[in-house]
């Protein structure tokens, strides 16, 4: 203690924060002539969805500036790739967006298949589609539960987890793992589908139809929910494109862009589905878009299980993968947006470079634009609506 006076630490933190947030470095005076308040949110905070750290500059409770500080979950995934063989790296991608591991795996496997110039068999592609769409529903359910929890509705979280559990059970039956599944293999599938896969998926889809109506009953027309989400965190279509936003964040702003339609992969070209698009680009529209996406994913699953073609599940790729020298970029529509893999091969068994374009990281860039002028309570709503996973942001 000694010479320390009360408030010393406070002042020290504040002065550091000021130099990094304000552009001019000058003291800004707010509405009532008071100093602004620097509030540090995270990395340990109940609703920053992991270890996001946000430095907020506040006028009372109004946000006049923000800075996202990331990297608390950095594991150097891209560097690890350079020291593993192509197959060895596959389980690592599951740990990026750990609530949508199947989608990560699909993107990686397809990228390497592109590099190898092979194509997965039809049966493998259909099963991949089913599992990936289930994963999209699971990921959106987790988003819905936590987003509602951030805004103060306690109950939807448990309903969402109940549904998500059903999906995780299907994954567990298929490959033995629930979260970090490593379900696919380069060139096709790791495992043959188990006997009752179609039945399980069908039962889930049937239940889910009425369950999603329940969630909407709780929230969609709720006055408080409308008040908390409408007009909050508006992102116009031009801004969304400029920030490079993808996925539901982009579509809620009115841009009809979905890689499943634009550049079909897996078996998406065989199925009919709609791309829900919002108009206002606010939190409420993003909510509606994701809800509708869950319904569409359900429809895709139902179409896919109707006719799963028979045949092999693995293309002939050999035990040792040595892609020809070259580079490839392949992207898929992950639940959170465009998930891209840029892989450079130098002809050896290890990739020369793997660059991953994570949707969460890019979507997070629009955070500052969205929170300015809103209240502290809206900050958590906006973090929730961006649907970020820090494992993916920091890699």
């Amino acid at each position, binding site marked *: *203690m000694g010479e320390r006076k*009360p*408030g*010393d*630490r*406070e002042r020290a933190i504040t002065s550091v924060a000021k130099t990094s947030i304000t552009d001019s470095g000058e003291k800004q005076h707010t*509405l009532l002539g008071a100093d602004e*308040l620097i*509030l*540090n949110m995270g990395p340990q*905070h*109940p*609703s920053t969805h992991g270890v996001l750290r946000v430095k907020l500059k506040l006028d*009372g*409770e*109004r946000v006049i500036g923000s800075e996202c500080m990331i990297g608390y979950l950095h594991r150097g995934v891209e560097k690890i790739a350079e020291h593993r063989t192509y197959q060895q790296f596959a389980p690592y991608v599951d740990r990026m967006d750990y609530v949508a591991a199947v989608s990560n795996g699909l993107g990686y496997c397809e990228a390497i298949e592109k590099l190898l110039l092979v194509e997965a068999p039809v049966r493998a592609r259909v099963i991949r589609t089913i599992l990936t769409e289930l994963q999209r529903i699971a990921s959106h359910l987790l988003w819905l539960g936590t987003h*509602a*929890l*951030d*805004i*103060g*509705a*306690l*109950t939807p*979280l*448990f*309903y969402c987890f*109940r549904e998500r559990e059903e999906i995780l059970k299907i994954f567990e039956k298929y490959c033995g793992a629930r979260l970090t599944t490593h379900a696919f293999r380069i060139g096709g599938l790791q495992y043959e589908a188990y006997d009752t896969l179609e039945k399980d998926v069908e039962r889930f889809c049937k239940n889910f139809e009425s369950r999603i109506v329940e969630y909407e009953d*709780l*929230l969609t027309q*709720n006055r*408080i*929910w409308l*008040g*908390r989400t409408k*007009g909050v965190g508006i992102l116009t279509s031009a801004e969304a494109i400029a920030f490079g936003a993808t996925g539901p964040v982009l579509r809620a702003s009115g841009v009809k862009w979905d890689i499943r339609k634009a550049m079909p992969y897996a078996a998406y070209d065989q199925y009919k589905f709609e791309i829900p698009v919002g108009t206002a680009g606010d939190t409420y529209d993003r909510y509606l878009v994701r809800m509708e996406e869950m319904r569409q994913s359900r429809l895709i699953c139902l179409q896919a299980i109707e006719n799963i073609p028979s045949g092999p599940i693995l293309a002939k790729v050999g035990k040792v993968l040595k892609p020809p020298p070259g580079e490839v970029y392949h992207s898929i529509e992950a639940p959170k947006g465009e998930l891209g893999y840029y892989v450079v091969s130098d002809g050896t068994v290890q990739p020369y470079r793997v660059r991953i374009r994570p949707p969460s990281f890019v979507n997070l860039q629009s955070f500052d634009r969205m929170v300015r*002028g*809103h*209240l*502290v*309570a*809206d*900050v*958590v709503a906006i973090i929730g609506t961006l649907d970020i996973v820090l494992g993916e942001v920091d890699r």
Partner: protein
Amino acid sequence: MQAVTQGTIEFLKLYWAPLLCGVVIVAFLPLIVGYVVLVERKLMADMQARLGPMRVGPHGLLQPIADAVKLLIKEDIIPEDADKLVFWLAPVLSVGAALLSLAGIAIGPAFQIAKDINIGILFVVGVSAMGIFGIVLGGWASNSHYSLMGALRSAAQLVSYETAAGMALVSGLLFAGTLNITSIVEAQRQQGIWFGLLAPVAFFTYLVASIAETNRAPFDLPEAESELVAGYMTEFSGFRWSLYFLAEYTNMIVVASVATTLFLGGWLRPFPRTQWLNFLDFLPPLLMVAIGLYCLVRVPKQPARVQQFFMVAVAGLCFFLALVLAVPVLVPVVNPSLAAGVKPLYEGIHGSFWFLFKVSAYLYFFMWLRFTLPRYRFDQLMRLGWHFLIPLSIINVLVIGIAMIVGTYLHLEGWWLLLATLPASIIALLIALFILAAEQKSGQQQAGGAASDSYAG
């Protein structure tokens, strides 16, 4: 010296019963609050498709005791830069105010610690509002941004909603003509109708305002765990934290008791003066018997021997309560000459049953709302308070007053008073809806520019 001893003895002779009651309340309230929390967790679990606490004791029934022990032996952390004296004082203030306000509450005609205060309800409301000092000081003394914001929110919220709650109480008090809690209930007995039915708008206003005053969802902004971590309690831990918790739940019980006393007929049974509904007196013992029988039916389905014993014990307790409740209503039926003798017994036992029943129903409603609704934002909360509830409650006082005058001229009494007050309530509601519509219109116009600044006040 002798005079002092003599004085003390005189004092004790006069006040031994209230003192004892006070000690009992301070000793048992934490336990009661603990079980209210357990009930809340169980209800929440029921609504969320899960089981809730199940580990400590049969069906988690010893969980509150385990929690209390855990909180007591936890490390007591005081932040380095905190104002230590205020930090120490704040939770004590909060819990002190809450416990003190309980003294004014009458659970039955016989069970009241501070008996016959002529400003009874004012005392309760005033003292319980003192608890806000504990919150504001606690938030300030923590020297943390989150705590400070929680405290600021809490202060603003209480000031706004205390007005609406006060005006709602005035509407009810107009019928009673007194602030004395016992007299308020007696007035409802004389009218034969609850004031909540005579002034439904006031009851509704008080309901909403009391949720906001006790910082419960959807108005739990001072705590708002997803925004402010834990608001004003962020830096508090262990026993200090549990004092805040105790204060919050005690306050819930206090506001529920006030609402019960003024709007729901206090310890009176429903329709206290309607003769042909006298069979309602048999409802409490029958209810207890039904619960006991249900427990017995469920006994074979319990998985463990301990739980089976426990269910039988609960059933036994229910039957015992049924017996206690049945005595005062059965004795007059068997032997009418004893009717006058058991009257105080009836008032005491059935009075507390109905009072606690109504308070529980009120608390259940609180909890139900918490599990269902998202949280308001601060500016929305302020707008709801200042632009809707306060005008509504003031208008309601005016129209209820006019209705009272009309009622006096036409010599309306009891249920006939509804003829005057119902149109008055409808008028108040219509005006309020009109205000709300106008408010929404102006809100939409404002939304064109930057975000509206209703927070600035």
